């Protein structure tokens, strides 16, 4: 396969998946008796436009970045583990750890200056996520236990633990009402007055800038450092890496720890940036599975993750507005799930692209026999 075709596919597969996802969403709207075009129009308008003035709304743009911040972190978290060959399905639980730990830290350090409190809380949150991910990593490395099952189970363990901590462990002075902590205030928050002002009072916070910094850092880590090389080789072939003198056990644990720390930071941004408190959660955090979706759509690259996180934020925020067109906002979650479905079956989409390209080539050079690419697609996926 020549390079330009494979590069083309790298872009075409996600683009086609997004289009097919939207198409499926349109079909569902149409079958349920809604006007799909009007639905998507309302979605875009809600995401960008101020309904009163009809101009671009800085507050909406701010909120898009607010939503994108945590998604970038959980997306990066999934990508790092996936590069090492693991499925970190526990992003939700690890993010939850980061959220609870960071809020708890800020509330415990009440009265200290912002420049001390916020960095400490961010680091504590990242560490909490890292510890939560180190457990499945270590179990995988030393006992060969499936990290998928352990992280799924841990999502629920951590969910119940977070409820327990808020209801029974935190001191009374940190609690607002049952199940809800006090607000951390501007002193402990990632929000700043200036960011709020330029975005017309949105919840825009430093989280998105932190996220972008980590997009670069993780790219550097994976592509330019020895550790990154080890993580990538273990992901490609753990046995060969072992023969080459790398410790796959060490790499497994380190990659899970990094992945968990990133997911934890996602929770920190959600806590210190978006909500500024913690309230008892009824189910796994959606940023966990959405982050996985972001990473899969962005094929694990930094640029891809940035674009997909922004796209999903537009979808999520715009979706909220679809109820004004009478359409239940859950539709956008169906669209997101469908996009990931099409990414999942990218094998078929690639075959389709191959076929289209081949047909074109055949027309151009008058049916010169071309070797089939199909056999190369074989093997494990």
């Amino acid at each position: 396969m020549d390079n330009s075709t494979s590069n083309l596919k790298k872009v075409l597969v996600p683009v086609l998946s997004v289009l097919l996802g939207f198409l499926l969403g349109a079909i569902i709207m149409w079958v349920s008796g809604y006007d799909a075009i009007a639905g998507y129009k309302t979605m875009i308008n809600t995401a960008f436009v101020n309904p009163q003035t009809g101009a671009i709304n800085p507050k909406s743009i701010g909120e898009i970045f607010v939503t994108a911040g945590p998604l970038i972190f959980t997306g990066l978290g999934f990508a790092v583990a996936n590069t090492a060959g693991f499925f970190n399905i526990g992003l939700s639980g690890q993010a939850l750890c980061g959220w609870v730990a960071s809020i708890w830290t800020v509330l415990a350090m009440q009265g200290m200056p912002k420049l001390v409190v916020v960095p400490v809380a961010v680091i504590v949150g990242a560490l909490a996520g890292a510890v939560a991910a180190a457990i499945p990593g270590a179990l995988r490395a030393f006992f060969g236990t499936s990290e998928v099952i352990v992280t799924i189970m841990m999502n629920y363990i951590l969910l119940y633990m977070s409820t327990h901590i808020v209801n029974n462990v935190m001191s009374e002075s940190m609690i607002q009402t049952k199940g809800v902590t006090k607000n951390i205030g501007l002193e402990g928050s990632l929000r700043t007055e200036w960011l709020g002002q330029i975005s017309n009072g949105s919840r825009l916070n430093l989280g998105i800038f932190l996220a972008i910094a980590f997009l670069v850092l993780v790219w550097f880590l994976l592509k330019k450092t020895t550790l990154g090389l080890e993580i990538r080789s273990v992901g490609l072939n753990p046995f060969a890496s072992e023969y080459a003198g790398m410790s796959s056990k060490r790499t497994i644990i380190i990659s899970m720890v990094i992945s968990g720390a990133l997911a934890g930071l996602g929770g920190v941004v959600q806590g210190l940036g978006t909500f500024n408190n913690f309230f008892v959660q009824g189910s796994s955090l959606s940023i966990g599975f959405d982050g996985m979706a972001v990473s899969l759509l962005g094929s694990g690259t930094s640029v891809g993750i940035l674009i997909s996180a922004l796209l999903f934020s537009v979808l999520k925020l715009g979706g909220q507005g679809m109820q004004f067109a009478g359409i239940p906002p859950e539709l956008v979650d169906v669209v997101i799930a469908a996009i990931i479905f099409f990414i999942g079956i990218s094998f078929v989409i690639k075959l389709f692209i191959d076929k289209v390209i081949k047909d074109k080539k055949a027309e151009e050079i008058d049916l010169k026999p071309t070797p089939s690419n199909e056999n190369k697609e074989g093997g494990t996926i």
Partner: protein
Amino acid sequence: MDLSTIASLVTQTLIYATPLILTALGGVFSERGGVVNVGLEGIMVMGAFSSIVFNLSFAEQLGIWTPWVGLLVGGLTGMVFSLIHAVATVSFRADHIISGTVVNLMAPSLAIFLVKVIYQKGQTDNIRESFGYFTFEGLSKIPVLGPIFFEGTSLPAYFAIAVAIIAWFVLSKTKFGLRLRAVGENPQAADTLGINVYAMRYAGVLISGFLGGMGGAVFAQQIAGRFAVTTISGQGFIAMAAMIFGKWNPLGAMASAIFFGFAQNISISGSNLPVISSIPAVYLQAAPYVLTILVLVIFLGKASGPKANGKNYIKSK
């Protein structure tokens, strides 16, 4: 603890165990055929949703039979929904975890979307015809055991136990079961012997969809009584845990499901019981998940589950 306390504890345990038993059995069929099914949760959601909609629509016509027909409707809906997973993993070579996650992401959003389309609100009304309690005439007269197991008990629970025994028989004593297991252990060898690997794997996933859908339908019509976004919250994953805890064996899965049902039950109603009321709820809620991790680490290690579980089979030309 007197007899009536024990009897109600047993009955409530059975009630909580029923959806877990059915769904865990579903997991067994899918994974023994080599397809990892983390989508059980989503399948349960669709089963719960469809059975409640059916129950609300047909309670007048069908009377006390409504929940049983609803059970069948839930199973069939689960089966149709599991087609997504089957097509993606068996035919289109998708990663089993990604595809299962898609099922889990899709189901609650689609179900709530449809609830809003049908009822113009985010959750359904309560159903009028639920499974209720059942007394086995005759058997309930047995001293001690009668009141505990056969009086005012849950009929779906006994149905689920019967399904577990049938599932064990099908998997270990029939030609179909042997072929399904062969496909999950070594698809290449099975293919050489003329077994249609793809067809067997489709069958495994669809059976798991049917059983998982029934599991969701039982939960909705016996415990929740209506459908909302939080109706199914983690039961599918507990069922998966029960399947692993039971080492992919139908009877083992059933026994672990009953045990996890017990843990769920006492975490909810344990405050009335001596000793248990002093344990913080968090331990009981987390128990099934912690136990599953422990059992994976201590007893199973690397050699866990069917050999070709989670691996796509690509037929060579």
